[in-house]
């Protein structure tokens, strides 16, 4: 009897340990390094106690991270009465961390946030409504699509910090071999048929193993959406209440992207769930072209040693369209010092700070007043940034609103599953379309 009880309890303990080390360990190990308590302790006891604000963000190493540090230092020097605590880290699991902190009531004062997530976090009351705290003409200088992305139901919840977009990087050496010149004007951008033909030539004649790669790998399925809008389709209805994915245009877009894989123009490992390092495939010449974002220019400058690259516009169809990437800064609803937090995010998005930030992080500015001529990007071919800037004007308004709607993360997860089935499992495009329609409508309920 005793042995039985012992065995039973041992079994309980073992299985509990198993479940928890698996599920719990993940988030625990990724906790943000919190210096807040230490810094608070060091400032305590002084005569004039500064107000502490905590800023949670992510930054990749290099220019982006350095720019954050430099701007933080500047803010700190200008505002000695505010003690700024920078809580940085990697992008991976940023939201998991954030939500865990919210659930545990350890809320930062300000955060960095993707445009795609603004809707979700405004609708559930995490972000502070700052409409009344901003000057009435504050929005006039920001790009309209980005400003609409930080607004939810008529109220403003964030300030755009920068934007990113996708364009087409190509291998110049391969193009020279084939005698192809890339379009230099947005109006002249290739159609998908022209583009796929070039992809085929790269594979057959230029020495590339595959035509191209698209950066929707590792679950970034929302980057498929430009194809949908280029065909003239749209993801959600204009009031964002129902899915519009059941259109003939959407079916066209699904069929088009399936062709990439069926015809072997892209490596199989670059499907939506793929884990291949697509940037390496481009820098080592395995693929002749890559649809990817402006922020990769430094990577390619450094790693593409055997070839040179150029940048041209995304292929188009009925319309031109590209991805709306980029981030905004928000004050949290439960911020302890919302006033100072707002002061900080206004500082970070000022014309001067934004210029510094985009130049160093190789991003695109979110303000109209920062024109291409004013920017000095520290990359080998600064001119390519003009292509990205022009391309960013093609972000469709409906797409900007759709991707920032509160349920976008659910839709992205669904898109990842279904597109991967389409690309790798030979699922019928019409069936994929039906699954998407049903799934998105369910997510919107």
């Amino acid at each position, binding site marked *: 009897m005793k*042995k039985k009880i012992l*065995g*039973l309890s*041992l*079994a*309980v303990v*073992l*299985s*509990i*340990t*198993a*479940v*928890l*080390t*698996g*599920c*719990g360990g*993940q988030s*625990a190990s990724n906790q943000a390094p919190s210096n807040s308590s230490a810094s608070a302790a060091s400032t305590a006891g002084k005569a004039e106690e500064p107000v502490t604000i905590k800023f949670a963000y992510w930054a990749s190493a290099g220019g982006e991270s350095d720019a954050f540090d430099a701007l933080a230092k500047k803010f700190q020097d200008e505002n000695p009465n505010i003690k700024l605590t920078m809580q940085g880290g990697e992008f991976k*699991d940023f*939201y*998991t961390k954030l*939500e*865990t902190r*919210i*659930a545990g009531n350890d809320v930062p004062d300000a955060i960095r946030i993707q445009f795609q997530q603004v809707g979700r*976090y405004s609708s*559930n*009351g*995490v972000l502070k409504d700052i409409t009344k705290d901003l000057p009435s003409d504050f929005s006039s200088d920001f790009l309209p699509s980005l400003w609409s992305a930080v607004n939810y139901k008529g109220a403003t919840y964030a300030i755009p910090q920068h934007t990113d977009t996708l364009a087409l990087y190509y291998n110049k050496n391969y193009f020279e071999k084939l005698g192809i010149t890339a379009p230099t004007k947005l109006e002249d951008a290739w159609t998908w048929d022209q583009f796929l033909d070039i992809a085929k030539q790269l594979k057959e004649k230029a020495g590339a*193993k*595959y035509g191209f790669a698209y950066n929707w790998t*590792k*679950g970034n399925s929302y980057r498929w959406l430009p194809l949908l809008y280029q065909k003239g389709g749209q993801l959600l209805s204009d009031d964002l209440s129902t899915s519009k994915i059941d259109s003939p245009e959407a079916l066209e877009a699904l069929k088009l992207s399936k062709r990439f894989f069926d015809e072997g123009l892209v*490596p*199989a*490992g670059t*499907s*939506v*769930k*793929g*884990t*291949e*390092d697509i940037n*390496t*495939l481009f820098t*080592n010449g*395995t693929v002749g072209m890559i649809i990817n974002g402006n922020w990769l220019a430094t990577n390619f400058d450094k790693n593409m040693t055997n070839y040179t690259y150029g940048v041209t516009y995304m292929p188009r169809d009925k319309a031109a369209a590209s991805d709306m990437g980029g981030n905004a800064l928000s004050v949290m609803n439960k911020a302890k010092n919302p006033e100072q937090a707002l002061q900080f995010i206004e500082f970070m998005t000022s014309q001067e700070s934004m210029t510094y930030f985009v130049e160093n992080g190789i991003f695109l500015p979110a303000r109209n007043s920062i024109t291409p001529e004013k920017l000095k990007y520290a990359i080998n071919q600064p001119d390519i940034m003009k292509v990205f800037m022009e391309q960013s004007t093609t972000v469709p308004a409906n797409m900007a609103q759709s991707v920032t709607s509160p349920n976008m*993360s*659910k839709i*992205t*997860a669904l898109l990842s*599953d279904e597109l*991967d*089935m389409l*690309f*790798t*499992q030979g699922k019928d495009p019409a069936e994929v379309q039906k699954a998407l329609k049903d799934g998105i409508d369910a997510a919107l309920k």
Partner: protein
Amino acid sequence: MQLSSVKKNNTRLNRNKFLPYLFIAPNMLLFLTFMIIPIIFTFTMSFTKWTLIGTPEFNGISNYVKLLSDKQFLAAMLNTVYYTLATVPTTLALGLIGAIALNRNMPLRGALRGIFYIPTVVSLVATGLIWQWILSTDYGVLNYVLEAVGIGEQQWLTSNALSMPSVILATIWVRCGYCMVIYLGGLQGISQDYYEAAEIDGAGDMKKFKYITWPLLRSTTVFLTVMSIIYGFMGFDLFYTMTGGGPGFSSTVMVHYIYKQAFQVGEMGYASAGGVVLFLIIFILTLLQMKGDDQQ
């Protein structure tokens, strides 16, 4: 005089009864905070609709009803069983072979033991990335070698047939060393007298293994089987970094699916229900193992 000595013994006995609890107290406290309480919380949350932010809404057993008809979850369960069945016997067998080999007197024994154990200590995410680099279709070392010897390129991580075996291969690499070390401990616990006696009776190596080593390692084998099955059901990191659960759902396992529901889709309640199902499976398996061990 006799009485007092009995009394003395009693107090020592009482003190000894109390002392062990004191020693395990810090551990139990942590265990309670980070294990017991969260698991009770998970059980509670599995009956709610919750998105981590906001208040959970009670919705009865509907998460469980949905889970049972969720084809992706069922597929993930089958994949998990496949993964576990493939990794447990292989890692145990290789671990045992390694342990027997390294239990002999041979040069560099210590160094070799260390080398075989190293993969166990490396972070699983790093391991996943290393294997991703080895097995990548287009820039992987393995395909480069296969191409050179004329076998040709294989779609290790990008075909339905090979994605799971690829992760299994990486798992074997990680787990062999662990099994080897535990088996080494077991082997060293077997008295040499048995072998000497068997030799006098004329037993060969195979007979010695069959009638002495293997039976006497039984409790070690049971322990390793239980631990490895649990490990198999908990598989996540390698899948996450090597295949992303794809292509399609060919390498989506339970923990990965639960993770996706919790942190990508944002359905905490539903994910908790998945966690509870996983808990129950591991609980029952562990129970069966221990019962089987008792009966022998």
